[in-house]
């Protein structure tokens, strides 16, 4: 097999894996948009906040210690414990539920029946507030996130492909874990929405707010629920991306990677987020591989959006999104 073809296959596989990482972020956007029609600008920051909280809890860091020390002249930094990863993840999930409740009580409750643009603006404010809160709570230094996820080349895939093609493919073991986690997440969300009372309530609200209210579904509870789930998805995304690069404030920018995925897959479809991620991931990597050397490289950031725009031209609602027609 020609070398270029082998390399293209390796690039494609890595693109698919990268796409799954983008999908993990996009899922959070989809959940909230589907249930409430809000484009949650703060989703990337939620991932950052969740990852910061996870590392802080795991390492026993005292939240707001810089502020406490500055005010009281103390030297407090750590509780002196190190929590097991699973316990820290569970506690962080609880924090995200609490955050969802606070967001509903302090922000969304007051904006019921407002225009979508107002809600969108509220999430912009929320994003900057949470970024600042994360900084004050946990500090802005880079933190190593270690929840026991494997990293580095998969020897198995390297060996299999070497035996088959004479060239071992590189696949990061972290990406394989991310793919498995994403599959489990999508399966769980599907089962939850299809077979549980609250899942059905969530779908009812997504279909028609007014009708859902008329049969006694609490819109406010559903909002807390969906923001909690989005918070959990953000935690998963934060763990995957944080394991890759350490937990630092640029983590919030992973949202930029999710936008073309949403444009392509549709804002209301969970499978769309996955398929969109796979197409964007593979598309941008292959374009960089073939066209990058000819046009100077660093094409991935903009090409993802070009690809999404191309799809938009032919299918404005995205591949799996619901078609919205407003009669005037």
């Amino acid at each position: 097999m020609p070398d270029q073809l082998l390399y293209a296959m390796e690039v494609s596989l890595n693109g698919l894996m990268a796409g799954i990482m983008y999908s993990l972020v996009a899922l959070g956007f989809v959940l909230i948009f589907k249930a409430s029609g809000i484009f949650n600008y703060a989703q990337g920051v939620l991932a950052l906040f969740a990852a910061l909280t996870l590392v802080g809890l795991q390492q026993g860091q005292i939240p707001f210690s810089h502020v406490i020390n500055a005010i009281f002249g103390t030297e407090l930094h750590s509780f002196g414990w190190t929590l097991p990863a699973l316990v820290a993840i569970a506690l962080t999930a609880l924090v995200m539920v609490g955050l969802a409740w606070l967001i509903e009580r302090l922000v969304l409750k007051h904006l019921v029946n407002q225009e979508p643009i107002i809600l969108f603006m509220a999430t912009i404010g929320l994003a900057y507030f949470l970024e600042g809160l994360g900084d004050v709570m946990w500090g802005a230094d880079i933190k190593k996130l270690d929840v026991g996820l494997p990293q580095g080349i998969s020897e198995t895939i390297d060996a299999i492909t070497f035996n088959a093609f004479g060239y071992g493919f590189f696949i990061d073991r972290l990406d394989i874990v991310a793919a498995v986690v994403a599959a489990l997440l999508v399966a769980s969300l599907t089962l939850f929405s299809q077979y549980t009372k609250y899942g059905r309530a969530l779908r009812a609200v997504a279909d028609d707010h007014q009708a859902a209210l008329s049969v006694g579904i609490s819109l406010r509870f559903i909002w807390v629920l969906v923001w909690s789930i989005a918070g959990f998805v953000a935690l998963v995304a934060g763990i995957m991306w944080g394991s890759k690069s350490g937990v630092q404030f640029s983590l919030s920018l992973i949202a930029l990677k999710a936008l073309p995925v949403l444009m392509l897959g549709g804002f209301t479809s969970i499978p769309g987020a996955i398929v969109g991620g796979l197409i964007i991931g593979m598309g941008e990597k292959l374009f960089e591989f073939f066209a990058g050397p000819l046009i100077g490289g660093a094409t991935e950031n903009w090409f993802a959006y070009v690809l999404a725009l191309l799809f938009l031209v032919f299918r404005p609602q995205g591949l799996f999104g619901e078609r919205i027609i407003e009669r005037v």
Partner: protein
Amino acid sequence: MKKTFTMLAAAAIAATTAAPALADLVVPNLSYRTGPFAAGGIPYADGFNDYFTLLNERDGGIGGEKVQVPECETAYNTEKGVECYESTKGQGALVYNPLSTGITYQLIPKVTADKIPLYTPGYGRTSAANGKVFEWVFNYPANYWDGASVAIKYLLDENGGSLEGKKIALLYHNSAYGKEPIRTLQELAKKHGFTLSELPIDSPGQEQKSQWLQVRRDKPDYVLFWGWGVMNSVAVQEAANIRFPMDKFIGIWWSGSENDVLPAGDGANGYKALTFNGVGGDYPVYADLKKYVFDAGKGSGAGDAAGSVIYSRGMYAAVIISEAIRKAQEIAGTPKVNAAQVRDGFEALEITDARLEELGLKGFGQPFAASCGDHGGAGGAMIQQWDAAAKKWSLITGFIEPDHDVLDPLVAEDSAAFAAENNIAERCN
């Protein structure tokens, strides 16, 4: 009621725009404590602030004049950096050090018009080393072209004096900063016969799979790296993932902090980076910082970053600026110097081993003497290597001189082009 409100408003405005006392020496700190590059911006800003606090607390300032360091947040954003410059220059700013090549490029024409020195140690526009053209800009002790040349000289030493037939990849932040060394490396590739491949990474650089797959395919002998922020830690992790030999991976001085290697754990062991200042906290100046600044509760941060790579570099910038102010006071014969006089101080500055020892920084930096035509200094840099087990950097070389035969014509050519574009007549003739 209306009167009370007016008074309150006036008080609030006065409080938010309070200028330093007229007698103070004003050195604005254009810092970034927020945004994706905060992890580097915070220790740099803290080191910068803390050194001036030390001078104020221990020595009563410089020449008896206290130093004010008003801080302005740029978030490493060029537009915000320019806004910070505009909003602080009226306070009597004596010099700017924005820690951003993008901001530097925008400020060069502004400081030239406003006659305020711009000090960009180890970053910014390389050809500003030519004082004949860039009257108001100083970038000693080293610049990016020096860095590129030092890296190649180090590799020459490692390869018995020849890089003929070797493959070197440059992985770089796709920005003005990351592109700075390309021209020099291209010239050095011609001179030494190695093949240079250029691999840009878009900011912020969280996703670098394509570039590292290419490194894996091309198998370069060495990878040179010009990154910043999250790009650094991701690159080190990706290099470890593909099992690229870490001792053949060399970063510029902005890609060699503890933040860049700690997330990769043991995988980062052996990674190398350039540095133009000493590493670690074993310099007497840190004892003074502890005594007069941290223990007195006057530190800019918690004090736990003292001795780290980026903190030390921020402190070193403050050391050089304070020495330039001191020199300016000496030349002007008064402690109350203005920006133009501080420029004269920068141009006449000489840093010797003896002076570094007096400052509690023996061996920390390379001695240099600036002049009318030379705003770039000697340009030497050392190589530091990461020990993952000990979690510390160690110097593995002394100062390596750059290849001035290659660099000087490039600096002259680039600065001449700038002079022609901006109708600048060469000075120092």
